[in-house]
């Protein structure tokens, strides 16, 4: 069909002079992971707080949490990326906006991507946290109150330690999503794995090899993440729950 195969291209030097194309892609994976991990920290921290607040008894706090979740759930990720990259600096005081625009372009892309992905994913984490808290038997909260714990203490010592362990499996898939979603950052100039696969294709015209290599790298990353998270799930499971029993066999 007229396609010229050349797997050797992976070991050929890339035009930027940093090494082989394979090395070029692996560095891309590094950027993907650095972005995903930094964004994951924001997502977990904000998501845990927002998700918890949405289960409290304060109506205004719940409404504020709902508002946050609805905003960032109903705008496509790429549009959010553009909002943070092009619109957000204009809303800041002029001095700050100019400082952002004069930043090193790579640092600017990276920080924008991390912030955007972190906020985007925090909404999903918040939903999981809320679901986890609501899945606990009501008696847990009542027992905590009966023992004289304040609402804060009930969350800190009774509800959250159980909820977080229950929602680990869905959080794993959110973490895989953040790795995949970081590819959207190529639209604001972050050269992560997918972005580098595309520019490898543009430089070398070996489209199939470039995308196949990137796909393989993503698959391997996924397997590593799944195995790692399974290990964490096993070590923190709640004794006595069905999930724990299933894992024990």
């Amino acid at each position, binding site marked *: *069909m007229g396609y010229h195969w050349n797997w050797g291209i992976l070991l050929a030097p890339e035009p930027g002079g940093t090494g082989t194309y394979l090395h070029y892609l692996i560095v891309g994976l590094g950027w993907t992971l650095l972005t995903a991990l930094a964004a994951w920290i924001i997502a977990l921290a904000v998501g845990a707080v927002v998700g918890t607040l949405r289960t409290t008894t304060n109506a205004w706090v719940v409404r504020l949490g709902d508002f946050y979740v609805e905003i960032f759930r*109903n705008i496509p990720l790429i549009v959010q990326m553009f*909002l943070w990259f092009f619109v957000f600096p204009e809303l800041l005081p002029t001095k700050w906006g100019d400082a952002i625009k004069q930043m090193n372009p790579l640092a600017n892309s990276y920080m924008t991507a991390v912030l955007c992905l972190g906020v985007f994913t925090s909404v999903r984490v918040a939903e999981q946290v809320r679901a986890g808290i609501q899945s606990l038997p009501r008696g847990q909260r009542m027992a905590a109150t009966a023992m004289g714990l304040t609402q804060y203490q009930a969350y800190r010592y009774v509800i959250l330690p159980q909820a977080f362990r229950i929602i680990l499996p869905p959080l794993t898939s959110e973490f895989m999503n953040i790795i995949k979603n970081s590819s959207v950052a190529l639209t604001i100039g972050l050269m992560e794995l997918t972005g580098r696969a595309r520019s490898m294709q543009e430089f070398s015209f070996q489209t199939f090899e470039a995308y196949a290599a990137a796909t393989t790298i993503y698959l391997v990353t996924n397997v590593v993440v799944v195995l790692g998270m399974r290990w964490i799930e096993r070590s923190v499971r709640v004794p006595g729950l069905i999930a724990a029993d299933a894992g024990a066999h």
Partner: protein
Amino acid sequence: MGNFDWDVIQRSLPYLFREGMTFTVTLTLLAMVGGIFFGTLLAMMRLSSRKWLSIPAGAYVNLLRSIPLVLVIFWFYFLVPYIGAWITRSPTPIQVGAFHSAVITFTMFEATYYCEIMRAGIQSIPRGQVWSGYALGLNYWQTMGYIVLPQAFRNMIPVLLTQTIILFQDTSLVYVISATDFLGAAAKVANRDYRLVEMYSFVAVVYFVISFGLSYLVKRLQVKIAVIR
């Protein structure tokens, strides 16, 4: 924000909606119909006891779900001309525009998500239903078509619709192949007139209103269905 230029939005409204939103909505609807069709077939394959059906289907679904949608879009943009050439026995890759490429990409990609939804839907039907179908003398396709799938669809309608809202948002990623969807149209105006703040804010508001409105409707539908059952 004092120099926020409403006029640029107003001037480009016909272009944004007639070109851009038409592209986005058409793509969403075609990919939904195609995705549910192929997704249901994939689900039936995955649930098959024949290994030569279930293993390829499972591999396809897991492969597409493990790589970023952006990479899937690039893959299909590159592959579709070759697949087309292979089907039509043309010696050179055929020409495929961004729209057709996007429809095929999103159909094949969303099929994997609809597949998992339909699989859960089919598995939620009691086994006795299938047995009574066979006991009545129906074959596999009749049992599926008249008994299992109608119930599975009905149970899964809210989830299928929620997935379609996600699909509607995901179609904005065709930006990476320079298609003129709603976001693409806005980006073209934004870069031409150098009005990025106005155009991207407007895009965000439109997406928000549509997605939020649709999710609200799905939620109400869910309540309705839940009452009947």
